[in-house]
């Protein structure tokens, strides 16, 4: 997995340490620590994982193993507006793939990528538990139901106009 090199600022290191401490630096809480850290930083670059490993007193390789195993964790920064398209069974049979293709076409990115302006990132997930609204798209925390390929343009417009 590729990653972006960065130098952490002292206050960022302090923040990671604080998160680890709130879980008593317990190695068993690694996943929770990573969740909270990703919430704070938006992603989990290598440098952040090194601090987590040192605080929990576990090998960096272990932390990296967990980060690469769970698709929720990412080592690449997400866009300002992260787009998640449900491709679970219910959404899929109701045309999620066509919706996804439309997002890819308009934004000109692949799944897992971020637009060059940093505005949108595109990801898939499996079921958000709102199958009645299939196909479902999430942008940030906002849920869009019964999305059709034709409607994608209008949804994106909401965010493009915000700027």
């Amino acid at each position: 997995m590729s990653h972006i090199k960065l130098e952490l600022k002292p206050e960022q290191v302090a923040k990671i340490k604080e998160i680890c401490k709130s879980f008593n630096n317990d190695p068993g809480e690694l996943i929770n620590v990573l969740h909270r850290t990703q919430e704070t930083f938006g992603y989990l670059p290598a440098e952040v994982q090194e601090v987590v490993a040192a605080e929990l007193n576990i090998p960096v390789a272990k932390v990296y193993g967990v980060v690469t195993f769970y698709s929720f964790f990412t080592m690449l920064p997400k866009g300002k507006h992260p787009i998640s398209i449900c491709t679970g069974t219910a959404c899929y049979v109701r045309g999620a793939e066509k919706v996804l293709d439309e997002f890819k076409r308009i934004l000109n990115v692949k799944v897992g990528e971020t637009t060059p302006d940093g505005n949108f990132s595109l990801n898939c997930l499996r079921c958000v538990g709102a199958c009645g609204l299939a196909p479902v798209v999430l942008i940030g925390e906002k849920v869009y139901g019964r999305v059709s390929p034709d409607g994608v343009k209008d949804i994106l417009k909401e965010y493009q106009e915000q700027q």
Partner: protein
Amino acid sequence: METVKLTIDNKQVEVPKGTTIYKAAKKLGIDIPVLCYMELHDLGVENKPAGCRICVVEVEGRRNLAPSCSTACIEGMVVKTHTTRVINARRTVMELILSDHPKDCLTCPKSGRCELQDMAIKLGIREIPGQEYAEMSTYRKDFSPSIIRDVDKCIMCRRCETMCNEVQTVGALSAVNRGFMAVVAPAFEQDLEKSPCTYCGQCVAVCPTGALTEVDHTAKVIRAIADPNKTVLVQTAPAVRAALGEEFGLKPGTLVTGKMVAALRQIGFDYIFDTDFAADLTIMEEGTELLDRLTRFLDGDKSVKLPILTSCCPAWVNFFEHNFTDMLDVPSSAKSPQQMFGAIAKSYFAEKLGKKREELVVVSVMPCLAKKYECQRDEFKVDGNPDVDFSITTRELAHLIKEFNINFEELPDEDFDRPLGESTGAAVIFGATGGVIEAAVRTAYEIYTGKSLSKIDFTELRGMEGIRSATIDFNGLPINIGIAHGLGNARKLLEEVRSGKANFHAIEVMACPGGCIGGGGQPLHHGDSSIIKARMEAIYREDAGKPIRKSHENPYIIKLYEEFLGKPMSEKAHHLLHTHYFNKKKDVYIK
């Protein structure tokens, strides 16, 4: 102890509660095939991720098949280990594992000793349906100075991960990614060289496939022998002679010292020398250093650091350079026997031959992978010319002997050349855990007390227990000795020392379980720790049979000091035989 009764293949068996089906079957003499599972009984190591599913069995009343390596026996259980359903499942599992496995077996370094290959043969796999749908991973090969990672061949048994994390506590390797891309790798999939890897090679020793292998130097050795302008010297480590025979079908624990020397001579080395000679030299330097530190300590010198830690094991050196950077002045400054040999060969012996050091090639045969890295370290070079040019493993030597078409079993016993081939029993036992410190005690005791030892064997220092300690009476002065083998045990012992809980004068550490006899370069033991025990017995047998058993009585060592070095820890000895250590903690990962 609570027990349960069950039936396996129509046979009754009673086992302690919690026993797995696999082990209960073993008790009945039923050998259920396993692939990812590994148990090293005497070391308390068990790897059972239940990932491969080769070991499945049918349990009456259970809907799905059960992995026998990790399913506990239950009272009244009825197990069948070879029904049609089981055989079909095993075959399918194997076909799936092979579907995305490279098919270059003919040239794979593990070919012939590959557990995956053996299993494919055992299960009669003749075709691999569905391989057109498999996504082949295309990882780049990772070449470190000692170990090659070719993780396209990784089957995710995770044995290496268990050795690296639980046994050695090195933490260089972890399972990463998922699906077809899942492999075991260092953090951020960087090269092993950038990880805290110590090159102990225990991962290589347990890898069932060609995913982890040693860097092979045999071609370079052959080239050196063929070069008429080079004089090629070979040195053989103590542990090699106790294991090399296994590669030729001899019983574990067979000593093949004489045959090994004969084979090396037939291959064409100009001088067949012994690392044991340098082990005796190590004892002279390290033993003197111990006594020096001890007497200064007893005289109240506060600058003296005790305990003294042995420094013969290069993986252990790498380990403390990564993990105990605050204690870099504690280990003995004595070089390892391999490096002492190289330094003496390319100075003292080169002078004797009237040759320049560049005209000599020193090859070492080691039970070890870390030795390959060690001989490449910059501090062991003079103007870019290394003291030891190539280090090959016991396995590589066996390859060489086979390639040279030598009938090993029929070879006569031959003797090492002199002067660097003469050694004592004290040097031989360097190969087993506790041996270095026992050898040091034999010499230090006699020098310190001025008395001759009535009993040469210090059996209290021997054994397989991971951490041991003993107190030896130096004529009224009690000397506390600690011993650890396996880096996880070393870490525990060192942490006790650091926190001030433990009070030792001297500690011996060997990175590999069992010491060098269980090294990462030895014939593969495939998880059978009785093989390591047999090698250990052989080492002590060799010691007992030696006419001289104390390093300071080796006549050629005495001569070396008279003619060349002066006395132990002299300026010349310091220059040639001692080294220093580096803080490697910051070299790790992202820069």
